[in-house]
């Protein structure tokens, strides 16, 4: 279980998050809210890319607030970037092998790599030896990023806006991939997203606005309210008079 206890985060003297507390024990949790609300900051705080200014982050009761990215990864946290990173020279197979924990130059078997790629709808034969460089499209990179998180098999996987930078056709396929992940995951998945169709898969939805939690609850409770207002206004109205 992941727990945020009164987490605040300040950057360049701006308050990005203020006293954010929540727990994640469900299988699939979506974090949503308007642009600039602090959603992606939450994802980066979980992965250890940012460190809170105050407050605590716990994983299964262990305080991980001051642990590095590497230490958190080794404890079972996976993180899929909003903009997947490109590498000159490293192939899809190299990255999936590293994700599967093979750091010493050994590679996972072609059959295993293929299994992960098939899960995300890529033809393994075409992709396994391709370099993860600028020749791949945004949609292809996103799928490879997801295949890497599958290879890790972590207890907690965080996706930062998986829908960003891909076309509608790729997005429809992505939804299917997440539905499958929901069925198969043995841990928890947290997705930062604006997309109704992603929110619709979630067990629980956390709405963030202006750096604070505006609402949190089961999907059936939160989603209808979100859809009534425009862009989560119903929840932000409780905080901001001008909304």
């Amino acid at each position, binding site marked *: 279980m992941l727990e945020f206890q009164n987490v605040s985060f300040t950057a360049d003297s701006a308050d990005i998050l203020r006293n954010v507390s929540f727990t994640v024990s469900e299988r699939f949790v979506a974090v949503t809210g308007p642009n600039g609300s602090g959603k992606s900051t939450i994802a980066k705080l979980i992965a250890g890319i940012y460190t809170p200014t105050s407050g605590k982050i716990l994983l299964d009761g262990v305080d991980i607030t001051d642990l590095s990215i590497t230490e958190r*990864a080794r404890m079972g946290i996976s993180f899929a970037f909003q903009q997947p990173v490109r590498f000159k020279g490293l192939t899809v197979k190299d990255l999936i092998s590293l994700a599967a924990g093979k750091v010493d130059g050994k590679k996972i078997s072609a059959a295993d790599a293929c299994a992960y790629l098939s899960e995300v709808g890529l033809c393994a034969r075409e992709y396994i030896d391709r370099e993860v460089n600028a020749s791949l499209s945004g949609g292809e990179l996103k799928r490879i990023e997801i295949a890497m998180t599958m290879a890790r098999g972590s207890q907690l996987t965080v996706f930062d806006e998986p829908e960003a930078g891909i076309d509608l056709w790729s997005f429809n396929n992505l939804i299917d991939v997440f539905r499958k992940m929901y069925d198969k995951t043995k841990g928890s998945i947290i997705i930062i997203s604006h997309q109704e169709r992603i929110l619709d898969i979630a067990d629980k939805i956390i709405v963030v606005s202006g750096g604070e939690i505006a609402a949190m609850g089961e999907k059936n409770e939160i989603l209808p309210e979100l859809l009534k207002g425009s862009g989560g206004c119903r929840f932000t109205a409780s905080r901001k008079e001008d909304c």
Partner: protein
Amino acid sequence: MALDPIQLELLQQVAGLHEVPQGAYSLRINGALHGKNSSENITIEKKTDKPGIDIYIKAGTKKESVHIPVILSQAGISELVYNDFHIGEGADVTIVAGCGIHNGGSEKSEHSGIHAFYLAKGARVKYIEKHYGSGDGSGERVMNPTTEVYMDEDSYMEMETAQIKGVDSTDRVTKAELAAHATLVIHEKLMTHGKQFAKTTFEVSLNGKGSGTHVVSRAVAKDDSRQVFLSKIHGNNRCSGHTECDAILMDNAVISAIPEISASHVDAALIHEAAIGKIAGEQLMKLMTLGLTEQEAEEQIINGFLK
């Protein structure tokens, strides 16, 4: 005379060989010709006027290879060797050269090879050259290779050069002249560390109609090392030329990339690209989210970049 373990290790590093090769080869050890062998289509002759060999490849020879490794395992040897390759019309061969220096002493070891390639019409050559240094002596390991390439019509040459470790000082010069429809592709990989210095100069003259070249360099400079990359392409006819230098800079190292393109024909299409930068922070971060330490991530990124 059998090779000792250090010589075998050098041979493995520069030529990927576990023993004296089969087929056509010439093996030079510590300043003298150790052995050579000609095959039916490939003749290797020792030069009589200066150190070095002439390699004659018959017209139409297909899918054969020649190995010409050089090994220096004694400190204090300096040599200058001339190797000339005459590749017959329509031949298609692989040539593997390379130099390994083990210096366990305090004196400088130096190998300078001057290689000239004469490709006849329609000949195809894949040329692989690796440089490697080992040994913990204080003596410098120095290699200064010069490569000259003369390409007749419709010929094709692919040149892969790698110097990844252990060479203290290098001044590499590659010059090429291309006739009509000849193509030259060069891939250079270079890593320097410690206080090493490496300078590479490419000068390709596209003289014939429809000739073309790609000169691609990937380099990593660590510690206090220095690198200079010079690449000149002259477009003297309807031709296409592309030069690219992509370098990763680390620690206190210094890299200069100086691409130059010059054209004297309106249909010459020439492009140069050069980029120097540190490893992107997001690349390190991505690999750390997979459980690698920062150092492990750095190694993976560099190994991939130079692969």
